[in-house]
């Protein structure tokens, strides 16, 4: 396998006043070279935590009690902060965060901030003034007109969409192998969103960068990703190629999410998923989605389904698609019924 990033059994927990809350639980995923991988989930599903864990930028209250994150065959979790900063962050893996509005330092020129990323990428070996031309080229590539002039301007002179272009320039200027994009278009207008997505596709084509695209918006994911994983309450519940997932969603949660998309279902009224994401301090036993699920049966309340391959490249964590376990459970249920009947 030519996996660029491979996450194995990763768990991330936050210390809180009421004990630990599991934000990410036993997550496995793999991103191949040049692939755009979508990670979809509601707020609080742990998708951003997962993104931050990859570059180890978690808040101090977070812990990683188990799991491995292999990036180019090195386990990031075991690397020192120094090594990650010098060799991974902004060099091999770049990250673009949610709200471009405050993501640039207001008191420094855009050009200065762009050049600094490159300066440290080159381990301070090339003088800043020799990097200016590269930075201007990069601004031009991200669709900023008159880049020589804009280079000298401050962030408040840029619109939200323009700031996101600058941030993408900062992300791509060091030719990273992986870009973690955490809801990069959520704060933008729909028209600007479409432009940024188109730009992202262009950049991927040019640099061959893989992307972990984190979002709650299935519409956006369908446009640009090759594969998708759906996260619910810290776990991946379904993972498939993008087309397969939209053609044949398996997990009840995925189905419900798709029904919430305008224009996906033929019903006039837009569907919603009743209930809330479970409290991470106090997850239900059995399947996390069970309390909100229309297909929930006895076994779901007792045991937690594991992510299993249903068919080639399409995995799901649901007992509905695991005939053996389902039948076993039904047999057991029958036995119980028989005993009660006798």
């Amino acid at each position, binding site marked *: 396998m030519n996996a660029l990033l491979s996450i194995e059994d990763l768990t991330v927990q936050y210390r809180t006043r009421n004990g630990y809350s599991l934000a990410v639980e036993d997550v496995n995923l793999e991103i191949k070279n040049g692939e755009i991988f979508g990670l979809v989930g509601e707020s609080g599903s742990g998708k951003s935590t997962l993104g931050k864990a990859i570059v180890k930028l978690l808040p101090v209250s977070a812990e990683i009690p188990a799991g491995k994150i292999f990036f180019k065959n090195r386990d990031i979790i075991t690397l020192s902060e120094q090594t990650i900063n010098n060799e991974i962050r902004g060099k091999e893996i770049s990250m673009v965060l949610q709200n471009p509005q405050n993501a*640039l330092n207001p008191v420094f020129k855009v050009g200065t901030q762009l050049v600094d990323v490159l300066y440290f990428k080159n381990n301070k070996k090339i003088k800043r003034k020799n990097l200016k031309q590269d930075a201007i080229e990069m601004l031009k590539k991200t669709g900023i007109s008159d880049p020589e002039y804009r280079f000298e301007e401050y962030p408040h002179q840029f619109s939200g969409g323009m700031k996101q272009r600058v941030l993408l320039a900062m992300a791509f200027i060091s030719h990273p192998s992986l870009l973690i994009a955490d809801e990069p278009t959520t704060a933008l207008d729909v028209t600007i969103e479409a432009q940024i997505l188109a730009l992202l596709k262009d950049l991927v084509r040019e640099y061959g960068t893989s992307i972990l695209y984190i979002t709650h918006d299935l519409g956006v994911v369908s446009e640009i990703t090759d594969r998708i994983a759906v996260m619910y309450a810290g776990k991946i519940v379904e993972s498939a190629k993008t087309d397969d997932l939209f053609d044949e969603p398996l997990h009840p949660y995925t189905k419900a999410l798709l029904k919430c998309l305008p224009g996906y279902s033929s019903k006039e009224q837009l569907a919603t998923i009743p209930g809330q994401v479970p409290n991470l301090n106090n997850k239900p036993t059995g399947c996390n989605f069970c309390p909100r699920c229309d297909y929930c049966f006895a076994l779901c309340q007792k045991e937690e389904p594991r992510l299993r391959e249903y068919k080639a490249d399409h995995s799901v964590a649901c007992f509905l698609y695991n005939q053996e376990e389902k039948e076993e459970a039904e047999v057991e249920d029958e036995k119980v019924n028989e005993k009660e009947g006798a």
Partner: protein
Amino acid sequence: MFVYISKRLLWVIPTLLAVLFLLFSLTYLLPGDPADIILGPRATEEMAQDLRERLGLDRPWYEGYIDYIRSILRGDLGVSIFRNRPVFNVVMEVLPYTLALTFAGMGLAVFNGIIIGLLAASYQDSWLDSLLTFISFLTASTPTYIASVLIIVVFSVNLNLLPSIGLGEGGLLNSLYYLIGPAVALSIGWTGYIARLTRSSMLETLESDFIQTEKSFGLPSYYIIYKYALKKAVKPIIAVVGLGIGRLLGGAVFVEVIFTRPGLGRLIVNSIYERDLPLVRGGVLVAALLFVLANLLADISYAYFDPRIKQE
């Protein structure tokens, strides 16, 4: 930038007019006849009449006010009653000492305060942070006169390292040597205050989204703290320093009295005791002017730290 500075400069005019009006009305706000109060019970009616004329009390107040403003514009601050010399000269004699003391004191406070605040913020919640927080609170709540007395007792009397009074004869070096004690005493309270301010402003800045961005792009943390965060965090510190310098210019009285140094603050206080009205007016006017200038400088230096102002 030009527009911004011009705007700030224009604001100086109404401020100073208001100050002038208050100073002028001092004469009328004093209960009783100012001439009698100034001269005391043993003065003759002739002397009193003479003084009334000098103070312009024999004319309607608005005429006096216009005259007052006219003479101020000519640079004439009047004549001191008891020293019988132009107020301008009396004030200018003490001004260099006041400026030296204020800038030395504030300079020390800014330098030490920012270093303490930065250290505390970079090692947030460690034992060092707690220690520095304790020191900051201790210094911030030490009144200047206690700090002055402590310095004299410890460094002048017991250790015999620093002079306790005077300006020092001849030579710049000797003057600076005599300035150490007073400047340190003056700086102590402000050091703690600026340290607290720096710490909280830095911590707030370090929470910002753009710091997350800078981290995620792999900039080293020393670089993020001392270049990117510090420049953003420094703005409230400038505002406070501007106000502080202004306040110290006429308010370093305790230090001047305890270390027996001439200075503007001490001059104003003495002239109030002597009821030397022209000298009070002149001294306070110069102090107010310096206060306004210090704040003007702070406003202008904002522009360096905030590009939005620079573009105005």
